[in-house]
């Protein structure tokens, strides 16, 4: 880490330019894209395992999310009327180009899946669309991390190895949150497992990212980004824990309910317990959704903060330069020593 005292700049002005993207549009796009993409995987799983209500709910949620995210993307363009220029070329070096094509494939699949599920028509087509959306969904959820990381923004680029895992886990948290809100309790077991996995995954990946970032990790801890990311942690962990806890409630509640029915007019407390389980589940789902949104808005804000303060551009680059110089010097010394050793012979 380079101490701030050694750092120089041109009147404190930023070296790189922060994106002019609106947080609501682009961080919102990250969140909605994740919700849609991961939601399609969940929908396919529910579809395959006969959890029909969940499947339909998640298909509709994914269609809504991807439509909103596309709208946010177009809204953020300087020339929205020219959005079709995105599909003028296909450039693997441009994550935004890759993403546009991904959305062009994924969007109609998600739409087809939702349409067939809602209308209960063309089940074959619906199943195919569901499968295709589930295959392209994870790519939609993960690529937005590359979109952010493939910039000169220190808080994004320097975490380019970890960011895709953070984004995928956050997407899984959002999708399982949505399932916990929408799905009937008897179908919600997979979403509870997924929520727990997602929370663990996100916390692990975030910790790794911050470790990698070194001094730039300050931008993840301070200011607006810090507040958002702290909130995200609390919301995600509470949401996942709540979902698991509600399972215990729900289990007892259901057993109680059955007992109550058998004994005709069981104690009201037991029935209340079943209802409480349902509410805790839905509440946990909402927390997970909010947590995922906070993660995306927090990472977005950290990127802006790291672009606006020149220290985050200069100090890591200076350190890299000095490391390279030291490596060159020691290589030269070794080389010289080798020559000396071989010289006489």
């Amino acid at each position, binding site marked *: 880490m380079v101490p701030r005292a050694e750092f120089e700049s041109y009147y404190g002005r930023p070296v790189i330019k922060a994106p002019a993207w609106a947080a609501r549009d682009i961080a919102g796009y990250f969140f909605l894209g994740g919700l849609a993409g991961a939601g399609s995987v969940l929908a396919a799983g529910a579809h395959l395992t006969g959890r029909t209500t969940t499947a339909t709910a998640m298909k509709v949620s994914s269609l809504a999310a991807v439509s909103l995210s596309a709208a946010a993307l177009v809204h953020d363009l*300087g020339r929205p009327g020219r959005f079709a220029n995105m599909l003028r070329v296909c450039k693997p070096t441009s994550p935004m180009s890759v993403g546009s094509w991904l959305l062009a494939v994924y969007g109609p699949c998600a739409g087809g899946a939702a349409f067939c599920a809602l209308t209960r028509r063309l089940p074959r087509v619906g199943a195919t669309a569901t499968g295709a959306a589930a295959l392209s969904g994870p790519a939609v959820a993960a690529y937005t991390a590359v979109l952010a990381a493939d910039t000169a923004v220190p808080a994004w680029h320097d975490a380019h190895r970890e960011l895709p895992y953070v984004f995928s886990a956050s997407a899984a948290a959002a999708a399982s949150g949505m399932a916990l809100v929408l799905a009937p309790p008897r179908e919600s077991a997979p979403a509870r497992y997924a929520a727990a996995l997602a929370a663990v995954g996100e916390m692990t990946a975030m910790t790794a990212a911050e470790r990698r970032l070194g001094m730039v990790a300050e931008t993840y801890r301070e200011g607006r980004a810090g507040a958002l990311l702290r909130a995200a942690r609390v919301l995600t962990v509470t949401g996942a824990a709540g979902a698991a806890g509600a399972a215990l409630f729900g289990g007892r509640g259901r057993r109680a309910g059955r007992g109550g029915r058998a004994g005709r007019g069981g104690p009201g407390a037991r029935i209340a317990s079943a209802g409480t389980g349902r509410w805790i589940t839905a509440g946990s789902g909402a927390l997970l959704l909010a947590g995922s949104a906070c993660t995306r808005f927090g990472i977005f804000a950290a990127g802006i903060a790291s672009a606006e303060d020149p220290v985050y551009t200069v100090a890591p680059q200076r350190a890299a330069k000095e490391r390279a110089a030291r490596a060159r010097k020691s290589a030269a010394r070794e080389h010289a020593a080798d020559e000396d050793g071989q010289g006489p012979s």
Partner: protein
Amino acid sequence: MTHQPHHLLSGVEPDPARDAGHDDPPPRVGFFTDTSVCIGCKACEVACKEWNAIPEDGLSLTGMSYDNTQGLGASTWRHVAFIEQQAPPRPAPDGAPGPEGRTELPLVAGAPDDRGRQAAAGGELRWLMSSDVCKHCTHAACLDVCPTGSLFRTEFGTVVVQEDICNGCGYCVPACPYGVIEQRPSDGRAFKCTLCYDRLGAGQEPACAKACPTESIQFGPLDELRERAARRVERLHEAGVTEARLYGHDPADGVGGDGAFFLLLDEPEVYGLPPDPVVTTRDLPAMWKHAATAALALAGGFALSFTAPAVFGRGGSGAAGGRR
């Protein structure tokens, strides 16, 4: 010549124009900006605005220096930086000859003894002036990430935005490691220096180089400029200006070398330049790999979440249901 296009993302790239698909391109051209002779007259800024008909973008007084332009942007394609600072103390002030030329402007003309005293107190006051511009990178991140193909590599090896294609996605803006390109708020689209693509086509040199009265801005084939710059640094070093250094000249640096490079008299960050810029797409293959793994992990996680209830017992309530 058996030259294979190889579309490198980073590293030494001898012929960017040919690799961008131009058959038999003219030699790559660029700028060598020798800041040691810049007098801060801003003729380049004015000539650029005039020739390219760039709109006015604020008439504010910054109060930080004579620099009221502040930085490169959508409507500022040449920017003269002014740095007021204490000159670095000379390594051997006593008896050693001071540097010649405009690199050191003492407020009070001092005798060698005087200079020694001032050096001990942190050096004399001096102005550094530098005319900044788009670097026309060998590996240009702006061009790599542009999703519409609006940014392209010209036959001269320069990087130019096509106004009629840009849809204002703004991706190039945070991609540039030098903070050059920007969206014009009133317009939405991205703009930057074209290295006077229109003038080059007509066999003319860019307006800024034409207007520069001290030849601080030199235009020409990049190979020639690099040789000339190396000689200039050598001469300055011989004259005792040991802090003279080239910036962006090295084809092996993080952006494959700049088409517009500089001779500086202090660390790059003092001029607002990044000390060790790297084209972000150098790491893009690694990013895609991690994204693919993350996407697989996402799918795998859900697969696990759907098999777990089946293994531990079916039903809605997960682990608790399993104990039924």
